[in-house]
């Protein structure tokens, strides 16, 4: 039986630099953390022999053993609730929720304990838990397999909510989440699992920082997760039409990085927030409200939102109508120039 210690050993996993899918980047982040820090344990439904339904935990049980990576009974509140207790006893649990909608049974544990234990105990018991949630649509999944559930978490004080948009960020942000002293809800955009990109495992990322992934002087698109590549494609298309459109990848949804976003929007005076979740009382609403408040005198046009509709997620045959796409973003950009209509 592995004896888990209080402090990580010094030996770091050797750095690599190669092209891989986001799924592979996440898998490597988990493996590297398991190798470097024996307080890390990975568990959930089907994460063991199967390696997870998305194979994000592939090979971890074989490599690190049943004590470090294991299947649990089928109960999400149980998974998160026991992670709380493990973290209280010095471990760093990383748990997988199989799909977005299947994390809802754990919501009480997340809102009433995961988010609050550090505050409740005045810092005496912080909970370094990572809750991985594959989220979002665009994969032809049936009902309950495509929810964009970030608003439930982002609205809850005490949680840090992260979503990567590239394999590099997937690796670096997941590593940062696993080193974080506080609980992180780590939202993995399912649609991007198989998208490839270069990953340098020596690059680190800081939670709480947005990045400008494309500069632009006319309009700022603000996006995260799956919407980042869509926003980039729209920016490219708008560029072809003669508009300089920048893109900010929010990366950490909460707590929010105002500085980066505000600077970008003040420079352009026009902004569109793009996200898949239903727009009502969403993270996109928050961004629009903050930008509206902080950039008021710089704005040439109202902050627009391109989000999912306020309806339950669409069945596979209709999801292309539901999801924000390039055209819808371009239409929104057009509305920022009413005089040109």
């Amino acid at each position, binding site marked *: 039986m592995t004896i888990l210690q209080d402090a990580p050993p010094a030996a770091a996993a050797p750095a690599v630099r190669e092209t891989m899918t986001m799924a592979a980047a996440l898998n490597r982040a988990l493996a590297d953390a398991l190798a470097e820090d024996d307080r890390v344990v990975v568990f959930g439904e089907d994460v063991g*022999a199967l390696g997870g339904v998305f194979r994000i935990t592939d090979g971890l049980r074989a490599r690190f053993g049943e004590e470090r990576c294991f299947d649990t009974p089928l109960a999400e509140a149980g998974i998160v609730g026991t992670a709380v207790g493990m973290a209280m006893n010095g471990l760093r649990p990383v748990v997988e929720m199989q799909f977005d909608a299947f994390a809802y049974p754990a919501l009480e544990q997340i809102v009433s304990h995961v988010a609050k234990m550090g505050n409740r105990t005045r810092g005496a018991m912080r909970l370094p838990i990572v809750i991985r949630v594959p989220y979002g649509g665009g994969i032809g999944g*049936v009902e309950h*397999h495509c929810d964009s559930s970030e608003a439930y978490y982002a609205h809850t004080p005490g949680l840090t909510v992260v979503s990567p948009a590239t394999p590099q960020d997937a690796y670096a942000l997941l590593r940062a989440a696993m080193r974080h002293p506080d609980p992180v809800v780590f939202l993995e955009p399912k649609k991007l699992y198989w998208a490839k990109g270069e990953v340098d495992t020596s690059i680190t990322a800081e939670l709480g920082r947005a990045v400008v992934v494309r500069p632009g002087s006319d309009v700022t698109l603000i996006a995260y997760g799956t919407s980042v590549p869509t926003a980039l*494609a729209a920016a490219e*298309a708008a560029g072809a039409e003669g508009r300089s459109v920048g893109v900010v990848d929010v990366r950490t949804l909460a707590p929010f990085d105002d500085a980066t976003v505000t600077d970008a929007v003040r420079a352009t005076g026009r902004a569109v927030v793009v996200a898949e979740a239903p727009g009502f009382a969403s993270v996109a609403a928050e961004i629009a409200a903050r930008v509206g408040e902080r950039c008021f005198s710089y704005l040439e046009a109202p902050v627009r939102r391109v989000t999912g*509709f306020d309806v339950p997620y669409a069945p596979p045959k*209709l999801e292309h109508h539901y999801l924000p796409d*390039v*055209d819808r973003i371009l239409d929104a950009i057009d509305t920022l120039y009413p005089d040109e209509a």
Partner: protein
Amino acid sequence: MPRNPTHRPAHPREHPLAPGDLLPRDEPVRLLDETGASHADERYGMPPKARLLEGYRALVLGRRLNDQCTALVRQGRLAVYPSSHGQEACQVAAAMALGEGDWMFPTYRDVVAIASRGVPPAEALVLLRGDWHSGYDPARYGVAPQATPLATQLLHAVGYAHAAKLRGESTVVLAMSGDGATSEGDFHEALNFAAVFHLPVVFFVQNNGYAISVPLARQTAAPSLAHKAIGYGMPGQRVDGNDLPALLAVLDEAVERARSGGGPTLVEAHTYRMQAHTNADDDTRYRESEEVQTWVARDPLTRMRALLTSKRWLTQAREHELVAEAEAMAAGLRVAMTDEPEADPEELFRHVYATRPPALQEQWELLADELSRSEASAGSREETP
């Protein structure tokens, strides 16, 4: 589906059974051995010939439906299919145990049970085809929409039964789940509510040994899942889930108990999922093919055929008739699945609320406008990268 008439006994027996009556047997109830020879039981009698023949017909159709669906997935005509191949006896028994005004609360894996209850296969497959979230009118067939979030439907089943009891109806509700789902909190709450309110519910757990890749030993350390029943104060029973006569006998008894005011029962059927969890799953990652092979010998169809043939109740001619009927059903389904209904985007907005609120109407108009523009300038923006 017409409401059941009001004929529940006015004063149901509210006395709890003695603890001894609540524990399951050490071994699952069996009326057929593995060769299909009948196996006498002290308590449960062999169902009558007509019922067995009806059951066999449903098995043949059910197996054909499973296999046809698996083929449809391969052809890309279904988005996903969680097959109940090997579990057809459970599926058929679930449907046969219920009367006309009764209700079934199925899961994603219970398409054969739903079809056995009379829902046209094409309607039963709307969810898995990706056209909509559910494809049949629940009230017409007494079948709730297939539930995906595990164990949640057990509470709906209990609530349905509670309403039936309050309304004085004699409805019995069959609440279906898998072995994995028994670990969820909702399973516990459902059994508890049913027992506390003494409701006409039969909980039917198809224990097929796995929850996707996770074997039963990771779901429970209990002697059996049926041993959970006593913790709620209801009887629990185990039954061979590949033995249709035993399933019918055990479920019939539980349904009768529920109908006569005797409260809920937990029935655990021991069966096996012969194929992967769904077409998207790779079961070689978590189980040996030898294990799967041992269950081939326990195939529910083979065992029933052996029984009926040995009793000379099933003739060669009848067998041919059934195969033909199954082929016709499969052919009909193939045709139905070829026909691609036009997906209407306005459907996304039509049913969210009984009356569409102005803010939602605005959103639909935005989409409608987008669609009409993209139709008008067909291709212009599509070409931008």
